């Protein structure tokens, strides 16, 4: 039977083949303007200013105290922002998910996300100045939370509201009180939402630029600002190393999200600025 199959293997359906061709322009475009640029970052990380191969960039970055402090600062701001977003966002999403009109109400919480983040940041900055709040770490973190809270609420709400009510009813039926119900059914079932919420807040927080500059009057520099600075100063090598570090964070967090069984709308969340 195999012999026959090979001998008479017919050309496949023609229209299938032509449809596949439709994606070729896009594939070519992505190759040129997404894949190759990323490869160039990788290459640049090993080049010095005269375009000769070197490992100095690595040495420069990993021995440069100020760069490492910026990285540490960014991670700290990222962790604090993410934690606050989770603490505020989880109860909020949970309450909303229980309400019949939650699907509409949640819209009002993610709506500000559609307004350019610079505008919102500048607005908060103007208010801080007007009410004499000193610009510094506190205002930066406020700004970050203000900007990225919707990114936490969106995936949390999606997962929480998609939890089948009958699980909760079953747990109650089996004699669990409300806190047990929450701990044993709702919380475990919303883990995927929590994880995607965390990454969706953490990654932009450490990589964005402008927010911390604006809200600290240039006193606090985060990793995103720092990458941009390096490239502005023409230090492509070190800048590339830092981009690679950023890329590593992105890939690790994406890996974690995938592992946690991503169900909620990652695309929705990241699409909003």
């Amino acid at each position, binding site marked *: *039977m195999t012999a*026959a*199959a090979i*001998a*008479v*293997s*017919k*050309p*496949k*359906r*023609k*229209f299938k083949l032509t449809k596949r061709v439709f994606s070729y322009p896009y594939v070519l475009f992505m190759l040129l303007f997404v894949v190759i640029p990323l490869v160039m970052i990788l290459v640049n990380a090993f080049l010095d200013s005269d375009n000769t191969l070197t490992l100095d960039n690595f040495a420069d970055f990993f021995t440069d105290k100020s760069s490492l402090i910026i990285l540490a600062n960014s991670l700290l701001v990222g962790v604090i922002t993410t934690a606050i977003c989770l603490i505020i966002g989880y109860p909020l999403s949970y309450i909303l998910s229980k309400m019949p009109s939650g699907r509409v109400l949640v819209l009002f919480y993610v709506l500000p996300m559609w307004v350019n983040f610079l505008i919102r940041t500048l607005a908060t900055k103007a208010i801080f100045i007007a009410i004499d709040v000193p610009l510094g770490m506190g205002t930066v973190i406020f700004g970050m939370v203000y900007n990225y809270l919707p990114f936490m609420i969106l995936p949390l709400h999606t997962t929480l509201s998609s939890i089948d009510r009958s699980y909760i009813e079953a747990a109650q039926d089996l004699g669990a009180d409300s806190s047990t119900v929450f701990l044993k059914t709702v919380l475990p079932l919303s883990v995927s939402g929590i994880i995607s919420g965390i990454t969706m807040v953490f990654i932009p927080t450490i990589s964005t630029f402008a927010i911390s500059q604006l809200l600290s009057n240039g006193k606090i520099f985060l990793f995103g600002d720092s990458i941009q600075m390096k490239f502005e100063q023409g230090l492509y090598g070190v800048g590339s190393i830092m981009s690679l570090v950023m890329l590593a964070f992105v890939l690790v967090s994406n890996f974690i999200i995938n592992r946690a069984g991503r169900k909620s709308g990652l695309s929705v969340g990241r699409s909003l600025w």
Partner: protein
Amino acid sequence: MSDNIIEIRNVTKTYGAKDAVKNASLNIKRGEFVTLLGPSGCGKTTTLRMIAGFEMPTSGQIIFDGEDITDTPPHLRRVNTVFQKYALFPHLSVFNNIAFGLKMKLIPNGTKVNRKGEEVQLFRKYTKAEIKAKVDAALKMVDLEDYGHRGVSSLSGGQQQRVAIARAIVNEPEVLLLDEPLGALDLKMRKDMQLELMDMHKRLGITFVYVTHDQEEALTMSDKIVVMRDGVIQQIATPETVYDEPANAFVADFIGESNILSGVMLEDFKVEFADTVFECVDKGFKKNEPIDVIIRPEDLKIKKPSDPKTILTATVLSSVFKGDHYQVTLMAGENELIAHDTSTYEKGSTVGLYIKPFDLHIMHKSRIINEIDTEMAGEGLVWISDGKFECNCDFEAGAPVKVKVDFDDVIITDDEEDGVIGATVVSSIYKGSYYQCIVRTDDYYDFFVDTDDDWLKGDRVGINIAPEKIIVERREVSENDAPEEAPVPDQTAEATENDDAEVKG
């Protein structure tokens, strides 16, 4: 020219390593109502899709009206399809759905003589008025006269079904293909539509090729039934023949209810099963050949034990009222039997049973022992599939051998990990006192296994065989010896190399 509108010649369709349809041949006569019947994954939908042109056969030919259409794309074939979930165009109204095919069509429009002096056929499209007339007629045919302007999503399932049928027949195809068209309807609607389709078949006079897994539907509607299983055609016959003279145990089990028992053909017209010798009308079997006996429940007559006709006695296990008959479960010796009777019998009572010789259907066993051509894996170890089994045999490693294992010596374990090799349950047929299962290894060898338990089709299981139960013989290696599997005489046993390749079946 023959009166066959469609001839399927030795068609095989392979997806990757799996055959969805294996060497199928089938002739469909003009005007016939042919039903492809079988469980899901049996290759019936794939066969239909090859006739429609959505799938190309891996090998073989499809002939339409004497013309080879194997490579013809679907839009050039003179067949139309009614799809399982209707596949109506959601963005078009009912009218435009039905008009779709007409708008695509070019019809002959006289001839002209070109510059070279040759006569050339001219074509034109249907005019709006022609389309309207045809669509209106089609709508009338399916009783939806006033629905032309409606959107298709606002219709009920039954109405959508009618639109789908109208959309296909308005093109006046020579063959109408129907892929489980009634599958999504509720029972009552299904019965009504069955009658309507039969009526439509009569009125239109065109050929219907109908796919279903519902044996009752097939028996009711068809002129000819094609029973398929695992990509292999099991039987092609009229509904009456398929029911009364099933070709093998599978067909018997699939069509209607039946008692299937293992027995021995003593000599012509004499068969022994359930420890009793019966008269029968079959001959031509080998002496003492192991066979399967099939008895329809309504053919199993319950008598008084003292009745002179009684051939064997049985104990009543249960008696359940089924609307127009009682289903009586009986225990005769070690064999469980089901009989249909007009009266009920008390549980535990002893009754006599009588079967007319004519009603005993005797079939060759598809296989009597599992035979595998393989190699030794080492001292006392033999390869079966991808596992090494212990055996009482000391041929050297690599020696070609034939391994034989009796059906009831193969042990199935619930947990795949508990077996030496893993396998998938393909089927399970009750044979009176035990279940005969077919389990398929990962390299597509089918083990026949007799067990006490009913295994769920599709489940993963493990296989164990006790060392002393594995019979190993040295094998002569000839050139055309297939290494994986010994040839098995009966076609049902050939049903090996595909699984659920066909998703929609």
